[in-house]
């Protein structure tokens, strides 16, 4: 995918340390006043011209959220979040559709450039008339992209190509208008509004996100991608993604995240819901590189995300792959509810923390159907003063005859001021199920380092190489272009942690 490929170039071009995506775009924003109350929710809903049922749903979620308390069980420390000190809605101001790129707000274009989005897609993203139908380069892998700029999905590319295949890929706000029956049927069906504190908050105030619908028997002709950015100050980003894969369909979805460098801690609380019917497959890949704060632990994104996939149909499969290198705080447990018989859940994760970052991440695999299978491979790397926790649950229901789980959690410590923790929960209620869990913690071996150094690699390059090897089992699950980007990200995120 060109966007990531060029992001890579940006990465490679930058030789100095620090956060490479630390820029912010100065464009006119339309913002709701700070604070959260029913009126703000009504405002968001009205701005998006939402039907009454969705407003009611939001308000119900808000009422639930008010009664909940922030969870404290994760191994995370942060000052209390003031939920009234945030803007819950921020959108770039709309102008009449520009005729060519020359008319597009140059600041916006510069942002896309820095994000590494290729020119034609930039034109599409900026809403240049006629740009949508442009054919894609034949020799490049095609990726359809939905860019979420703060809270609003700016544009979706390759819409027409997808439409031919019957695939719906659009901002969820658009789906609410154009496919209300689908949104109403599936929204909140995997992550109910009362699921947890942050999911309830998201349900009340979500502003945009992506909506994907793959019809029966369709193999989505290209990778779908969303690029999230947090741009405005003191805004919370609450995107909502919903992916539905009908019987026998397949989709691969990529999600990348960056955010400009800011001193304040910014809140991000997304919800992602996946539904897979009989024989359907969803592959969901994430490279998360939100601003992690500076080397003193100042600033950074608070990332509290609820991601869950529901294998509703027989032989369905949901696969999560994530590379988490950013955010000051990561609280994220992409999960699979394996309801259909013979359904499969996978979780491949690399979580890297440096400086004062804290990550508490893992997965839940709930085996309900017979012969359901799950695989968990988690690689945690801690450096600097950071703390990295794997927290996972594998639950085998009484009915899940022949269920199978394999879990492997490995932690790597770099330096003696960081922490690596493993908190797995293993619950089995069926004697025919077979569960295996193993976890190890170690450091980079001196002989490995010596071997690389002896062959002329600098210490930092050697560590990067070894860390990439440590993560290989996960990186190989990523789509190729993402895998390359992820390797670079790992190396960059470790800068300054050795020597």
């Amino acid at each position: 995918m060109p966007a990531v490929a060029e992001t890579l170039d940006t990465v490679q071009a930058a030789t100095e340390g620090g956060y490479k995506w630390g820029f912010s775009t100065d464009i006119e924003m339309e913002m709701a006043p700070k604070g959260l109350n029913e009126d703000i929710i009504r405002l968001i809903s009205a701005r998006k011209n939402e039907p009454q049922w969705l407003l009611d749903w939001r308000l119900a979620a808000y009422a639930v959220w008010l009664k909940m308390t922030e969870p404290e069980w994760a191994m995370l420390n942060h000052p209390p979040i003031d939920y009234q000190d945030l803007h819950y809605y921020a959108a770039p101001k709309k102008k009449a559709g520009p005729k060519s790129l020359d008319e597009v707000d140059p600041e916006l274009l510069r942002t896309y450039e820095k994000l590494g989005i290729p020119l034609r897609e930039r034109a599409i993203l900026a809403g240049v008339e006629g740009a949508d139908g442009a054919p894609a380069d034949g020799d490049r892998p095609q990726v359809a992209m939905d860019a979420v700029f703060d809270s609003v999905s700016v544009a979706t590319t390759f819409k027409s190509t997808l439409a031919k295949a019957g695939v719906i890929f659009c901002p969820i706000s658009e789906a609410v208008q154009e496919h209300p029956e689908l949104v109403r049927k599936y929204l909140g069906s995997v992550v109910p509004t009362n699921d947890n504190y942050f999911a309830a908050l998201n349900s009340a105030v979500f502003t945009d996100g992506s909506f994907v619908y793959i019809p029966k028997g369709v193999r989505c002709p290209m990778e779908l991608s969303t690029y999230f950015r947090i741009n405005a100050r003191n805004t919370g980003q609450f995107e909502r993604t919903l992916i539905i894969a009908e019987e026998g369909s397949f989709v691969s979805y990529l999600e990348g995240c960056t955010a400009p460098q800011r001193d304040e801690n910014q809140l991000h609380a997304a919800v992602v819901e996946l539904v897979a019917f009989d024989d359907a497959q969803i592959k969901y890949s994430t490279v998360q590189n939100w601003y992690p704060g500076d080397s003193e632990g100042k600033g950074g994104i608070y990332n509290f995300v609820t991601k869950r996939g529901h294998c509703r149909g027989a032989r369905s499969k949901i696969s999560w792959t994530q590379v988490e290198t950013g955010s000051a705080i990561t609280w994220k447990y992409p999960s699979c509810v394996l309801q259909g018989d013979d359904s499969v859940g996978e979780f491949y994760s690399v979580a890297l923390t440096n400086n004062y970052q804290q990550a508490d991440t893992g997965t839940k695999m709930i085996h309900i159907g017979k012969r359901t299978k799950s695989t968990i491979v988690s690689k945690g790397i801690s450096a600097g003063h950071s703390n990295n926790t794997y927290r996972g649950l594998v639950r085998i229901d009484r009915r899940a005859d022949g269920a199978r789980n394999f879990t492997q959690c490995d932690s790597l410590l770099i330096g003696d001021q960081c922490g690596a923790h493993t908190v797995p929960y293993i619950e089995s209620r069926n004697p025919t199920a077979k569960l295996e869990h193993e976890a190890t913690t170690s450091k980079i071996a001196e002989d490995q380092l010596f071997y690389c150094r002896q062959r002329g690699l600098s210490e930092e390059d050697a560590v990067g190489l070894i860390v990439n090897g440590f993560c290989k089992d996960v990186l190989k699950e990523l789509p190729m272009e993402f895998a390359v980007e992820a390797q670079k990200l790992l190396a960059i995120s470790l800068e300054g942690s050795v020597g």
Partner: protein
Amino acid sequence: MSIAPSGPLAALKAAADAYVADYQARKTTLPGDSHVRAESAALVAANGLPGPREEAWRYTPLRPFAEAQFKPTAKAEPSAALLARLPQVEATRLVFVDGRFHSELSGVPAGFRVTTGEPAYGTLARPAAEKLVALNTMLAEDGAAIHVPANTDAGTVLLASLATGAAVGFHPRHHIVLEPGAKLTLLDVTIGEGEYLNNPVLTFEVAAGATVTHLRTQDEGAGAFHLSTVYAEVAEGGTYDSFALILGAKLARMEVHARLAGPNAAAHLNAAQLLGASQHADFTTIVRHDAPNTASRQTVKNVLTGRSRGVFQGKIEVARIAQKTDGYQMNQALLLSANAEMDSKPQLEIYADDVKCSHGATVGALDADQLFYLRSRGVPEAEARAILVRAFLSEALDPISHEGARAAMEAAIAAWWAKGGTVQT
């Protein structure tokens, strides 16, 4: 109109209040340090009993315990049948009946000191952190203080708790001190008949180069509650070597806190839980590596039949200073019936980088291939299953070096198996 609160939290609160009331009524007659006792009474009054929302208790709800009522103990005599269940080994006997020291059934120690007649509080327990320890401290009436002088081998001590099943609740408090280079094998046997509460706390101070081997058999009555807490603190080069065989009680929780405080200290926390019917047993360990070059080994095996529920929670904590830590933990469970359940939570919390820590957990049924192998060689099904279960347990049992204790445990396992291990499949 007000509705009386119900549910587990109310039941736990009511039970805590009743225990505090019992303490208030009897506090002037209870032996030992009244100040320590009063402090814990305040903790019980303020904190109550562990509730279902507490992470450390998520798999073991104490509601059945809270709803049962136990009266204070009186002097009692054990039945011959109960006495016959004590292991026949050569040892100095310290026998407690319904939580009270029974001198006629006990022997005289040679070369080391034992005091009884009041709770041996020691200083290692943390009633502010562990609510059941506060309950024990508040109501403890008796216990053994065992003191082994430097470079002395105290041999084998049989610390036996016999319960007569008179619906009593007792809270024994034992304190074991090993001076530098001392040695002790403690056979800690808790057995009984019927319904009662046994809530013992044992604390071990293991000085430099000392070794304590703590071999436990928990075979309490079918209606009993066994809630025990062990604290062991091990100094440089010392070893706390333990094995627990868990067979009895309706609801059991064994919690072990081992702290490796000096370089080269070691702890072994092995266990086998064999459960049937609707038994619930929880083996929870917290091993803290607080010094460099320390090692811990845990092998915990569970065999579950009937509607039983096995719980294992094991946490290895490695402090920043504890470089070169070697921590290993393995938890395995065999589910032999459709309604058995295993919940396992092995945890690592590591703050030092030059360490080697690993844990593993498996849950499953007997291997069909292995069964087939034995059957195809003419071994009857029941026997084949017995062989495989015995083999499954061997990794935990084999390290027991005390011949007599191991033989007694093997016999107890064989008896458990003969009694019904094969029935519920």
